[in-house]
């Protein structure tokens, strides 16, 4: 949404304060999907469909800004954990630790493969004839968020590559005589407008969750958005303060969810329910069931539930499955409706 672009006082060059996550009006499904992806990296990315100006990138940015600063080995361009010092292509053995903000990388539309995966460091090559690796955006996004606006306009091979890295958590570069491998674990968030051409189904399927964002239709919501934007613009620091408590709540929820996730298992009967739901809606492939299981667990963990129940599975079913349904071109019914109908039939 425009929130992120709403300027602050005058024309100072100082960094813009990000919009607080909890101050975002509505968009509950997207927020939930982002939180699930934030605590469960195995989900493998969130695809956000929606028109321009609906707050897609604002929510993603806000979540990144919300996360507490993360400790990294000082001077490490790969965001190594302090205990991982010296394990990346950089000899990051300073022995000191620094806290840096959780990275949020916005992948530009025309990004070249060089920029994304990294390439030969031209400057060092020129200066000293040294063969060195210049890390790309994937390294920059490690332990953070990688946001791709209009992913449907990105070249297919890049999308493929990004999904591969997102799934494996590792970037492997074999080019220009370089052979480099580094960690690249991030929450992949793609956004796109179906009006402008669609993503190929085989790529779509590889996103864990997909949500549909619509512009708020309630007048009160729209006015509230305008009010909050005006308030944030007038006094960004004060506004951040006002929402600090709410943001802290979300943060605690994330922390609790992360802790809880390890101990939660999905019971047999919920797995069975998930499988029958997938069958009922004809979701292609195994990815649907796996994601559904992981997302239910993460959602239960976020809510602090003691066990994973059917209701947790059902509430994430639309976002885990809607992009995996085989399209029947002659059937106008939207994917979400088909899933809801199946839920109604199966579980009443």
């Amino acid at each position: 949404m425009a929130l992120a672009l709403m300027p602050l006082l005058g024309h100072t060059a100082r960094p813009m304060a990000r919009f607080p996550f909890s101050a975002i009006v509505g968009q509950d499904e997207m927020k939930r999907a982002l939180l699930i992806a934030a605590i469960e990296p195995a989900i493998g990315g969130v695809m956000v469909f929606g028109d321009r100006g609906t707050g897609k990138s604002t929510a993603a940015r806000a979540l990144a800004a919300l996360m507490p600063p993360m400790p990294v080995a000082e001077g490490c361009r790969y965001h190594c954990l302090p205990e991982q010092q010296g394990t990346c292509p950089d000899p990051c053995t300073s022995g000191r630790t620094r806290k840096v903000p959780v990275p949020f990388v916005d992948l530009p539309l025309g990004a070249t493969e060089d920029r994304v995966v990294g390439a030969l460091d031209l400057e060092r090559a020129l200066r000293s004839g040294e063969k060195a690796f210049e890390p790309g955006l994937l390294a920059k996004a490690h332990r953070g968020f990688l946001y791709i606006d209009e992913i449907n306009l990105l070249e297919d091979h890049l999308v493929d590559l990004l999904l591969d890295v997102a799934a494996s958590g590792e970037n492997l570069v074999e080019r220009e005589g370089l052979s480099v491998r580094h960690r690249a674990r991030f929450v992949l968030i793609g956004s796109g407008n179906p009006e402008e051409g669609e993503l190929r189904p085989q790529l779509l399927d590889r996103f864990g969750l997909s949500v549909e964002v619509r512009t708020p239709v309630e007048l009160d919501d729209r006015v509230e958005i305008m009010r909050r934007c005006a308030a944030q613009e007038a006094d960004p620091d004060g506004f951040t303060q006002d929402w600090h408590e709410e943001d802290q709540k979300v943060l605690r929820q994330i922390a609790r969810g992360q802790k809880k996730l390890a101990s939660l298992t999905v019971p047999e009967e919920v797995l069975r329910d998930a499988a029958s739901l997938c069958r009922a809606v004809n979701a292609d492939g195994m990815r649907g069931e796996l994601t559904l299981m992981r997302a239910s667990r993460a959602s239960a963990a976020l809510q602090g539930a003691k066990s994973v129940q059917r209701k947790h599975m059902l509430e994430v079913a639309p976002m885990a499955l809607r992009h995996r349904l085989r399209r029947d071109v002659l059937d106008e019914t939207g994917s979400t409706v088909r899933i809801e109908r199946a839920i109604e039939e199966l579980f009443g």
Partner: protein
Amino acid sequence: MAMDPLADALLAVRLFALAPRQLGGITLRGAGPARDLLLDAMGKAMPDRAFRRLPANIDDERLMGGIDIAASLTAGESVRQSGLLREARGGVLLVPMAERLRDDVAGKIAQAIDGDDGGFGLVLLDDGTTPDERAPDSLRERTALHVDLSTIRPLDPPSPGEDVLLPFTEVRPASRDQLETLAVTAMALGVDTMRAPLFAHNAARAHAALHGRGKVADEDLHAAARLVLAPRATRLPEAEPEAPPAQEAPSPDEAAGEQQTSGQPPEDMVLEAALAAIPPGVLAMLASGKTRRSAGGGGGRKAQSKLRGKPLGARPGMPRGGARLALVDTLRAAVPWQALRQRELSEPREGVLVRKSDLRVRRFEERSTSVTIFAVDASGSAAMARLAEAKGAVEMLLAQAYVTRSEVALIAFRGNGAEMLLPPTRSLTRARRALAGLPGGGGTPLATGLTAARQLGESVAAKGSTPFLVFLTDGSANVAADGSPGRAQAKADAHKAASAIASAGLPAVVVDIAPRPRPEARDLAAAMAARYLPLPMADARTLSAAVDAARPKGMAA
């Protein structure tokens, strides 16, 4: 309520000058003296801001900053250049010929605007003349003010006016009621994006600042509605019953004719201000529901021109077999190794040492996008039943198309004209919407339909894509090319139009959808040198398979 367009344009420029960051930017559409005048006024109003111009064919290094290869080679050491986006920070970035801006460049500019380190005021100079030719949507969306100068002929430049200027931040945010008014107006005009009401709010505040008011007044809201909301309108208020809260929205007639009265609720007055700013032609289009969301341009075509205009970069390879050497990329590949290679030589050599492995060739779209153009006879004779089949076939082909990244367009002809229901697109969503709105019945203006398909085919070919025409008709015509009824003339015209397709060399297929195959359709196919497929009992699936089979070889679905 009618405002002098030039005075309004000037007002927009002054608002922008007052609060470039809060308003994001301004889109000036249409070249000419009016624009020069406005740019002049803008420069005067913002004396302390740096203006940067975006060169037409800017490369990544210049845009984002990076190593200047040419300078580095000369200097023998790495020379960095700063990126234009960074240089423009805090100032104004002028984008000439914005309608030709590549999507990837537009994306990077949009990102710089949204980014963390503050942006710049963006001025889009859009020289487009047709609705398809316009600045990238991603950037237009991020400029609050849209000014169309194409109809303005400045005679006497209005004086800029001496206003009391308050700093933008001195103006208090609008009241809840005022915000509501802007939000209602935006919704009534079918403006979905949330950026628009946010921008409108800032525009109202800037307008108040311009007039030395510390508080937003009604006229500030009116100005905001005119300058920010009206240009984004996608429909007229009456089309949206649930939009206004209590009162029903005024019908366009009332809005246009009625003078504003003090008894009117403020929403209506603001809406009226917006409506008054919409040019009559656009108003008529909105009223007829013609523009839909794709009011000129739209994703499909955008994506296509992107594919054509954007080379895919370079890749290692030998420059032979038609592949062109990418000089800069080759040098870029060779440069890093120079020190090493010099060392390997027994005696130093002058110049750049290029090895075979450094060679890069240019890569363009490997296979041009194929565009399947369906021209559907939606007349009464072609029977409503067939129309459903045709719709199904189009959707089916589209579903295949998005796997192979090809596109589909849809033309329908009935009554006395042909209509492009769907410009070339890959979007299933838009296709479905267009198809759902396809009406049937009326006469058969076959010639008009054939001509419309040919023209679209030619324009597709001119853009570098491969057209393929599919006609679904029973071949009978009863409306002539000029719209007059009469079988004989209609038939003659249709054959003339068909031969034109043949001489244009467009690959085509005629699918006879008559209940029983008839000679008319066969003759038609012969005249346009197309394949003839009689499909009396075809359903969508067979139709789609048949079309697929008839497609020229080498063209993906």
